[in-house]
């Protein structure tokens, strides 16, 4: 009872003009990323002109990448949630909670008896569990994502303060530091982790059923449901995945700062959402790009670096960030209108 026998009598149709439409699609995707590449190159040029060798220094560039790595991992997870039609405001708080939970464990002497990997798993577990709670509230409790994660933001950061007693916990686990401070072929481990997460994220979003379902759920949840996709379960998985990313980011942050703190991850939610959106992922869901998110993260981190090298204040950085978001979104809308016509 295949469609072949069922429809054998159908008249033949003209052969699909696949080439042209494929190339058009590639053209538009490349076009979007070209804009981001140009922006990044211009920023780097600005850095070279204003700060010269201090910017174009291997150590400085590695610093940029190390800084980008932590927020980058969160932003990759955020790309999935936003593509799936959701939003998560609690990522910064989850990073903080995961970091203090893991470091509390490490500073309470358990670390002497157990391997540092337990600390890593603790952070991942805490992050994943927070994501699971968010996802369950949104999917099964039918709480609007904005509100549910706003509540988690408050609760997770509060819990982090309780656990850490508002103190910064310094981690001094030798194996841990040795592993994360190392380099692979001159590239810091943190940067390698970010690259692996980005590559894994790209494959997951673009080459797997999980990714395809994410686009479907974000594009039209009702149609996805009626096509047989378990939209609620998928939503829970998306938020859990983001939670895991936050747990991993917490581990990376502990490694970079050698501390766990309830103030970690401040405003990560805004940085991550901004990076995702200027990368070209649609805030309303159904369209998402990992490459764009990576560029978005790099643009923001490079900007901060150039500003810092020029002794410009954090406040000036914030103004520039805001301007970049607005310009990027305006450009995207114009491009979308042109390709849509």
């Amino acid at each position: 009872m295949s469609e072949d026998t069922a429809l054998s009598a159908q008249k033949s149709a003209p052969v699909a003009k696949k080439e042209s439409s494929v190339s058009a699609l590639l053209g538009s995707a490349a076009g979007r990323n070209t804009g981001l590449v140009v922006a990044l190159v211009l920023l780097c040029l600005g850095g070279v002109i204003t700060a010269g060798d201090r910017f174009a220094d291997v150590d400085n560039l590695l610093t940029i990448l190390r800084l980008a790595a932590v927020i980058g991992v969160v932003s990759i997870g955020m790309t999935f949630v936003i593509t799936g039609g959701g939003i998560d405001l609690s990522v910064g708080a989850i990073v903080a909670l995961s970091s203090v939970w893991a470091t509390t464990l490490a500073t309470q002497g358990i670390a002497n008896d157990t391997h540092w990997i337990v600390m890593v798993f603790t952070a991942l577990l805490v992050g994943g569990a927070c994501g699971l709670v968010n996802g369950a509230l949104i999917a099964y409790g039918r709480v609007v994502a904005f509100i549910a994660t706003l509540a988690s933001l408050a609760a997770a950061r509060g819990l982090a303060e309780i656990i850490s007693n508002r103190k910064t916990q310094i981690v001094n686990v030798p194996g841990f530091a040795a592993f994360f401070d190392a380099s692979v072929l001159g590239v810091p481990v943190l940067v390698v982790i970010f690259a692996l997460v980005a590559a894994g994220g790209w494959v997951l979003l673009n080459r797997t059923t999980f990714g395809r379902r994410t686009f479907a759920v974000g594009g039209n949840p009702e149609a996805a449901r009626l096509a047989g996709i378990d939209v609620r379960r998928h939503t829970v998985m998306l938020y859990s995945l983001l939670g895991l990313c936050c747990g991993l980011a917490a581990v990376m942050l502990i490694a970079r700062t050698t501390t766990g703190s309830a103030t970690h991850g401040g405003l990560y939610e805004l940085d991550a959402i901004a990076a995702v959106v200027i990368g070209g992922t649609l805030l309303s869901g159904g369209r998402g790009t990992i490459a764009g998110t990576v560029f978005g993260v790099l643009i923001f981190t490079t900007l901060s670096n150039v500003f810092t090298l020029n002794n410009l204040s954090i406040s000036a950085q914030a103004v520039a960030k805001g301007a970049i978001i607005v310009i990027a979104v305006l450009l995207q809308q114009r491009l979308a209108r042109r390709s849509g016509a």
Partner: protein
Amino acid sequence: MVSSPARESALLSVEGVVKRFPGVTALGGVDFDVRAGEVHCLLGQNGAGKSTLIKVLAGAHRPDEGVIRWRGEVVEFGNPTSAMRSGVAAIYQELDLVAGLSVSDNVFLGHELSTAGFSRRAEARRQTRALLDRLGHRDISPDRDVGRLSVAHQQIVSMARALSLDGQLLIMDEPSAVLDPDEVRVLFGIIRELTAQGVAVIYISHRLAEIREIGDRVTVLKDGRTVATGLPAREVKTSELIALMTGRVLDNVYPRRSPVDPAAPEVLVVRGLADGDRFAGVDLTVRAGEVVGLAGLVGSGRSEILETIYGARKAAEGTVEVDGKALRRGSVGAAVRAGMGLCPEERKSQGLLLDQAVYRNITVSSMSAFAKFGFLDDRAERARSTKLTESLDVRPAGVDRLVRGLSGGNQQKVVLARWLLRECRVLLLDEPTRGVDVGARSEIYELIRRLADSGVAVVVVSSDVEEVLGLADRVLVVREGRVVHDGPADEIDESRVLDLVMEGQPA
């Protein structure tokens, strides 16, 4: 094409109107005229340019060439407001109402009643109630949120809005698509009343029977051009109209039935289904190769029955079995795994991922067939989808196109292709030909019949009684949530079905 000689009596005349969009000429030369007090029908397939023409007449698009005369004088409607002021009001197919606002706010949207800047809400409510009364719908409260109304009632509100503008020319784009037979009758009553007062109506519909009943003259569009104008609506032959629209001759739109084997296995068995609200006690059995039609009014519970069988709504009582196995209640996943497929009523909002490629819409329900360890084989997906779209003659070809750009008929074929790919056992179709033009309609009928012949059990819900009778082997009539008739389609006629559908209801 020459417009009618009685130009001076024409309220509106359109001469050589051309409208181009980047890459397409939507209108390539349209001529026709509308006289005061007549119902002028516009006929044409999807993509023939009807919607663009309406937008030009209502001031939403500016024509690139050609002349529009209003009462003999050349006019240019730069925007919808200027068209409205002249007395042209359009009721669009995609209703342009604002959900969240009340009925009366919507009726007076853009021409709010006010005194010195203060809105006169009570007066607006009073006038809205009067307009709704005139339309035979006392049951719609002016204070209701428009978003909570049924599609049919939204249509009524849209009409009230057009009437509130005191239009001299009303343009109605497929108003009957979402209405029940008795609502259509009320609508026709209103149209007759309006035309008796000298108001002209441009009426667009795919249903030829309606055009015969209400129309005075017919203009046929094909590929953005007028191919015939001023045809007498009551006398012109159906075959002639279809030939004009399609450029080819169709003798019989419904495919021939093949007798259902009485020993064929019962694929879908529904027993005592109830949702605790809209319907109860529904029994339904469909054999392999059988097409069962559900006829009933909008709101009779027919769509809800279909959605509950599919698990998209949770049943309160009763069982649904496919091939002898009971399905878990309220689980679409279980229904799909058991071999069920649904083509939902609202194709765009419930059936399709509009901004995604055709092939992704087709494979969305069978992804696991193309995946190894969760990794998808794009190439195989495209190849299978290409084969399916070619055999269904989806136009324009190309599985990487976005579904949004396809016409209604081709979008419906994409939804059907999704279930063809799964080789499903039971296919549930809710209004399979809404917004689908005559040519594509007969292709979809053919396809449904061919699926049934290959052993699929098919259930069709439609507001179009003629369609149910023409397509189905067996007909169930649903009234107020109960099945009131179950019998072979060739033993019942349209008027009997309409009797059953409306029995006990106020006329």
